[in-house]
């Protein structure tokens, strides 16, 4: 994996994780 791909990977996973926190709270609210 090249350095550029690694950096893209990291940015994408961090962005996804951030979105996941918001999504998770919405999901838990929807499920209760």
């Amino acid at each position, binding site marked *: 994996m090249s350095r550029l791909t690694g950096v893209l990977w990291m940015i994408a996973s961090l962005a996804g994780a951030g*979105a996941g926190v918001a*999504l998770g709270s919405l999901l838990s609210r929807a499920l209760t």
Partner: protein
Amino acid sequence: LVAGVALCAAGFVASLVTLYNGFVTLGLGGGTCASGGPFVVAHQCSSGEVRQLLVGLGGVWVCGGACFTAALGGPASAVGLLMWVGPFGLLGFGFLHGSGGLVAGIVFLLLAAGGLVPPLAGLLDWLANAGNPEPVAPGPMIVRATGRVPPAPSTVTTPGQVTNAAVPRRIVPPGRE
């Protein structure tokens, strides 16, 4: 590929948050998911909590599997370790914070810490090498194969019969001589 990584990371974290919310809500309410038997559960868990737990747990597996598969060409081991540390650490914290399960919380946190050992060991190695890359080959080769195998020593057992000493021609079990 990058969009897929973001998507599965979002799904994985969302499932973790859902699982944690269900777990802590259940624990803080003092609820128990059980029925039947001679005892009556004081605070029966709600169906919403059960949904949160099930969706969270299923999502952790499905999205975690997707993330791991996406990472197979690259940092699969790091992703696998994150998938190990995340749920165990979060549930350990949930035990300590929510349901007061001190022993279970500590055990879960220790399990999560176990997943941090390989990257920490790698980091320590890296620090010990002062950031230099490890040598790939240990210097020039000293011993080299010639491609010729020397013949094994032979012995003459009976007149006219030459036997290789290393390979017996006939195996004689003990007591049958």
